[in-house]
C-alpha cells in the first residue's frame, strides 16, 4: 500500500514538474507570434500500430486519440485560440468496411466520453465543433455530435473543430448550394456570388483560416483538407506518425511559423 501511495506521489510530483517546465517553455515561445489556428492532418495511425505490433483494427487510432488529448492540452497551455483536426475524410470511406466501422465506433465512444466529461465539468473552456457532412453519418453519431456541440457551445478558451466526413470539394459544393438558395430568392437580377457568400456557408465558417498546417506521417499533400482555407497557410510536414507527435514537434512547428512570419507578412502585402 505504501508503495502505491509513493508511486502516486512520485507521479504527481513528476507531472507538476513537467507542467512547470512546459509553462516556462511556452512563456518563452509566446514572446513571438503564435498561430491563431493550427490544423493537424492526423496521418499514420495504422503504420504506428504495425510498427509496434498492436492487435486490433483500431489500435492505431486509439493511440492516435491519446495523442489528440496531449496536443489539445499543449495548445490550450500555449494559448492557441483555434485548433482544427482532420479526423475522417469523405474519401476515407473507400477503406475496408470493417475498418470504417471500427473508426466510426471509436469516434462515437470518444464523443460520448467527451459528453460525460463536459457534463461533469472536466473539459473546462473547450468548445468542440464538428465540421463536415454529418448527414452521411449514422444517426447515433449525429445525435451525439449535436449534443456535444450544444453542451460546449459557451466555452471560449480553446475552440476545436473536428472535421468528420469532410472534404473541401464537398464543402464548396454545399456552400454553393446554400448561397444559391439564398441569392436566387432575391429578385430577378443577375446572380452575383462573392467570395464572402461562399465562405459564409462553409462548414468551417465559424473559425478563421489556419495559420499553420501540420501533417504527420511524412506525406506532402493536402488530401482534400481545407484547400480553400489554406491558400496562404504555412504547410509543415513531419516524418513522425500521428501517435508519435509530441511536444517538441509542436514547438518546432511553431518556431518555424515564427521564423517565416516576417516573410509571410511581407508577402501578404506584396501578394
Amino acid at each position: 500500500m505504501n508503495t502505491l501511495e509513493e508511486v502516486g506521489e512520485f507521479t504527481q510530483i513528476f507531472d507538476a514538474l513537467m507542467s512547470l517546465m512546459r509553462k516556462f517553455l511556452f512563456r518563452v515561445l509566446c514572446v513571438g507570434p503564435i498561430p491563431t489556428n493550427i490544423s493537424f492532418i492526423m496521418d499514420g495511425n495504422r503504420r504506428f500500430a504495425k510498427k509496434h505490433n498492436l492487435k486490433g483494427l483500431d489500435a492505431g487510432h486509439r493511440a492516435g486519440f491519446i495523442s489528440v488529448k496531449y496536443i489539445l492540452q499543449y495548445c490550450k497551455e500555449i494559448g492557441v485560440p483555434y485548433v482544427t483536426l482532420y479526423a475522417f475524410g469523405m474519401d476515407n470511406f473507400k477503406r475496408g468496411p470493417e475498418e470504417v466501422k471500427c473508426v466510426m465506433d471509436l469516434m462515437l465512444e470518444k464523443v460520448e466520453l467527451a459528453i460525460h466529461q463536459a457534463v461533469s465539468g472536466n473539459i473546462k473552456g473547450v468548445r468542440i465543433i464538428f465540421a463536415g457532412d454529418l448527414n452521411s453519418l449514422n444517426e447515433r453519431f449525429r445525435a451525439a455530435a449535436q449534443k456535444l456541440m450544444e453542451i460546449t457551445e459557451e466555452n471560449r478558451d480553446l475552440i476545436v473543430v473536428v472535421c468528420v466526413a469532410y472534404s473541401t470539394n464537398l464543402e464548396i459544393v454545399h456552400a454553393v448550394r446554400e448561397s444559391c438558395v439564398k441569392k436566387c430568392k432575391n429578385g430577378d437580377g443577375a446572380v452575383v456570388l462573392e467570395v464572402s457568400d461562399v465562405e459564409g456557408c462553409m462548414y468551417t465558417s465559424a473559425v478563421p483560416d489556419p495559420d499553420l498546417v501540420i501533417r504527420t506521417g511524412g506525406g506532402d499533400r493536402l488530401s482534400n483538407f481545407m484547400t480553400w482555407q489554406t491558400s496562404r497557410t504555412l504547410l509543415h510536414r513531419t516524418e513522425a506518425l500521428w501517435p508519435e507527435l509530441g511536444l517538441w514537434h509542436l514547438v518546432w512547428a511553431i518556431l518555424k511559423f515564427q521564423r517565416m512570419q516576417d516573410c509571410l507578412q511581407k508577402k501578404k502585402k506584396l501578394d
Partner: protein
Amino acid sequence: MLSLRVRPPTSFDFRRFNAGYLERRWRLSRDCFLSFSPKFEENRGIKFGVRSSKSDVAFTAAEEEETLPEELQAELMPKHVAIIMDGNGRWAKNRGLQPWDGHRAGVEALKEIVELSGKWGIQVLTVFAFSTDNWIRPRIEIDFLFSLFERSLKSEFQNLAKNNVRISIIGDSSKLPKSLLRVINEVEEVTKNNTRLQLIVAVGYSGKYDVLQACRGIAQRVKDGEIGVEEIDERLIEEELETNCTEFPYPDLLIRTSGELRVSNFLLWQLAYTELFFAQELWPDFGRSGFIEALTSFQQRQRRFGGRKS
C-alpha cells in the same frame, strides 16, 4: 527614362557559378547555333555555326541519350505537373540586378523545363505566371511582365508549335492589355491541335477566382431554371473550372521553388490529392537537376487518395 541595361556586379559573386546557372548559360549559347528542337536529324541541314560533321553526330547522340535520366522511370512519370515559379525577384536582388532581369532569367528557366517535360512524357504542364494577388505590385513591374510575356509568346510560339506543344492560357483576362490578348488568342488558335505537351499558363489567375467563376456560372443557371439546386455536384463544378481545357485537370505533382511552404491561392480545387514538392532553389536556378529531384521524389511516394494500400 528607364534604363534596362544590366549593371555589372560590383563584387565577385560565386553564386553565379552554381551548376544550374552554368548549365543554363551553356544551353543558351548552344541554342544560338542550334534551333530549339529535339529533332536534330531533321534540322541538321540548316544548322549554321562552326561545327564539324563528326561533332554534330556526337552531339545528336548525346541529345538523344538525354531522353530519360536513369533515376526516373517512364511508367511512373506524372501526367500533369504544376509549377509555382517563385523567386525571380530575390534571384535578381542577390545578384545586384533589377527585378525584370530576374523575370527574364525565369523565362529562360521555363523554356528549359518545357523542353524537358516534352521529352520525358509529361502530358500537361501548368505554370503560375501571374496571380490575381500580384496586381498590387508596382505598375512598372506589371507592365514589364506583360510585355515580357508578349515578347516571349511571339518569339517562342513558332518553336513550340513545331514541337507539337499546345498552349492554353487560363485566368481573368479582363485586365490584361489588348495587344497581349490578341497574341494569346492567336497562339491558342494556332496550337490547339497539338498533342505532345499542353502548356497551361495561368495569368491573372487564382484558385479562389476559378472556383468562384465556376460557381457564378452555375448560380446563374440555377436562377434561369436550367438546373436545380440539388443537381449541383462536384462534377458540375469541375466542368465549369478553367482547367476543363485539358484532359488531365488534376495535377499529380506541384512544385514550388524558392523554399516557400505555401500554395498561395494556386489551383485550389484541383490540388485535392496533388503531391507537393517544395524546392529550396530560386526559380531561375531550378533547372534540370531540380526538376529531376522533384520527379524522383514524386516517383518514390505512395499515393492512397484517402483509401488504403495494404
